[in-house]
């Protein structure tokens, strides 16, 4: 199984668990997707901040629509699995759906970041302090467990 990593603007580090999930030496790609950046109101300063971060990461950087480029890049790299840092961003989630539809043979997996807290039950999110009252004990321990 050959992997390809799609690193997006919500997970710009080499210590993200997505790298541990992939075989050593798996190529990582960032797609400079202008349409998604514009739709997300990402201004020029934040674009510069992202670009400076990319400069340290030594990735392949491609300019274009992620839903078009990633299927092509998966084929070019001979990848049959695309690993992606998990994101709550509906724009990224929507793009993953389109990539799956474009290349049904490509397995697409989202990889969660290390948890801030591990809770036995889903917390009540109606107000912060209802969440905090459940999360506090774990949050004050190393690794949140």
């Amino acid at each position: 199984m050959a992997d390809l990593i799609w690193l997006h603007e919500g997970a710009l580090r080499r210590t993200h668990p997505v790298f541990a999930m992939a075989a050593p030496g798996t190529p990582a790609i960032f797609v400079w997707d202008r349409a998604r950046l514009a739709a997300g109101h990402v201004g020029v300063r934040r674009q510069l901040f992202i670009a400076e971060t990319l400069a340290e990461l030594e990735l392949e950087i491609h300019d274009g629509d992620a839903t078009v480029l990633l299927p092509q890049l998966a084929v070019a790299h001979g990848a049959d699995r695309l690993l992606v840092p998990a994101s709550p961003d509906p724009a990224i989630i929507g793009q993953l759906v389109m990539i799956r539809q474009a290349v049904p043979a490509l397995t697409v997996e989202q990889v969660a970041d290390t948890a801030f807290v591990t809770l036995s039950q889903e917390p009540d999110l109606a107000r912060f302090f209802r969440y905090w009252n459940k999360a506090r004990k774990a949050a004050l321990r190393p690794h949140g467990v």
Partner: protein
Amino acid sequence: MTKCLPKTLSVSEMAVSDMIAALVAALPADVDAAAPRPMAGGRKAAERALAAINPVAYAASRNHLDRAVTRLSPYLRHGILSLDEVRNHALAKVADPRQAEKFIQELAWRDYWQRIYLAHPDRIWNDVEVYKTGFDASEYDTELPADVVEARTGVACIDQFIAMLHETGYLHNHARMYLAAYVVHWRRVRWQAGAAWFLEHLIDADPASNNLSWQWVASTFSKKPYIFNLDNVAKYTGHDINTRMSDNRVLACSYEQLSELLFPNLEPAHG
């Protein structure tokens, strides 16, 4: 409108040095591109910011605009640092975990916002609840007034905060709350217009943290609207912020007066 890279870079594989040069050239004309910026991108800069945190000092002065701030937010926003590693680092700096509790609670706010974003993505741009201001959502303007965008509201401290936002891409959290409250409650503008404005300018802007915080101020995700007065600004800002009464008249009131002025349809609070 978002400024993007020039079209001349529209080839598939990009050289990051070209990207950076193009973005520096696209910075607003009033920004000195050669001057050190408060928060540079990259893991090395993130690790320097992380090494400098002081959870105990943070707890004592986090609300003051001129005291200890960590400036970790853009690194957390872009996953350059994880919440887990920042929390672990904070715990390693204190003898008792409770000394780092305020700092860790701020990290927990970010975890909380992200959980809502994942579970309820529709809440990012839609009112979670009705306004508790005595006004219906339809009574709020949908666009930011030009004088707000141009930092010429005539309210001195507000204009300074807007200028900071535009010039540096960063604002202390307390200044963000002041600006948000001014836009929504003094100018009666829907929070969505202000949230989009912040997303455009803040280096650390995250849709969940940003938009749900605007909703918290607006009262569409809280029990009551957040407001402030000039005394509060004076208490939490340094001498570089103009808090003279004559230059900030619309803020120079008691909370009771402001409530009556800003929310005339609400019953006065008693007790």
